[in-house]
């Protein structure tokens, strides 16, 4: 019994050590910029990730709400995103790879081509390089650097790339 308890204690200690993270590039989960997310990241997620046949599915990792995809409630269809949905998306993004450095976060590495340091992704390679505006914009948000001038340029270019057709008249 003693051995069992000692083993459990050791496992817990190792688990805690793995969670301890003091990298200066990491933004605590509760400090990710919701305003920057809405402005810069949500349009990228909506166009590239959040369709009803990918991350717009309840229960899927990085579950995402979107105007053209999954909605939080039935009566929200065809309406703009609500704050509640945006917050839920931020929480969902936070939960993908908590503790990871922004440039190693799975939010970047899943859609990134494996040749560029990405990992296997059912949805394929969305970004061939970390330098692509969409990738740079998302990583900057994870790092809390959305307001840097260089990042603003990338995010504006990304926003142009992912612009959706207007809603039906």
């Amino acid at each position: 019994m003693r051995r069992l308890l000692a083993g459990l204690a050791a496992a817990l200690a190792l688990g805690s050590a793995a969670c301890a993270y003091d990298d200066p590039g990491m933004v605590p989960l509760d400090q990710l910029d919701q305003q920057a997310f809405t402005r810069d990241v949500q349009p990228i997620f909506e166009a590239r990730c959040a369709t009803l046949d990918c991350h717009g599915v309840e229960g899927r990792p990085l579950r995402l709400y979107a105007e053209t995809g999954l909605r939080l409630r039935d009566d929200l269809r065809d309406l703009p995103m609500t704050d509640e949905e945006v917050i839920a998306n931020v929480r969902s993004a936070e939960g993908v790879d908590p503790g990871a450095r922004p440039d190693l976060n799975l939010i970047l590495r899943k859609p990134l081509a494996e040749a560029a340091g990405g990992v296997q992704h059912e949805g394929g390679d969305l970004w061939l390089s970390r330098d692509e505006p969409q990738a740079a914009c998302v990583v900057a948000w994870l790092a809390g650097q959305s307001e840097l001038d260089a990042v603003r340029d990338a995010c504006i270019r990304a926003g142009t790339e992912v612009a959706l057709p207007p809603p039906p008249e």
Partner: protein
Amino acid sequence: MGLVRAPRSIAAAALALGLAGSACIGTTPEEEAADRAGPDDGDEGPTHRPGQPCLACHGADYTPGGQVFAVAGTVYLRADDDRGLRGAHVEITDDDGAVLDVVTNETGNFMISVGGGGGQEDGWLRAREAPVFPLTVRVYRGDGEQPMRSVIHREGSCAVCHSRDGVGAVSVGKVFLEREP
């Protein structure tokens, strides 16, 4: 050489594994999806089951319908119509820039199979090659046009996201050409 008797713990583990394994034997998700479509309405061929998720029975992984489709669905003139729209074009542009254009049949159905010569009849386009996802789609007829705002990443059945049961949190409603009468 005599047989060695397995300890009771191993036998119990084997029994548990057997029971767990037997719980997995049953209906597959694909079979469940096909069952949800219910019995056929008597019609057969390309005009049957408008508005239902075609690849539930015509998918690559489960094909009780016999024919595999890459993309298939139903187009309506307006979102609240009960009958599909004949003669609507569904134009699909794949990730490589290839364009497939298929015209809906009398129930509004269209379907695209792969490995044909590129011809089409009765809503069925036999494409030479499989479209590469993600797909960009627009529907048009005459002067009317309706582009799909989002892309299709992987789902070949339009009705999975465009339920004929209407709009909701998980459905954007039917594929339609005109918003207003």
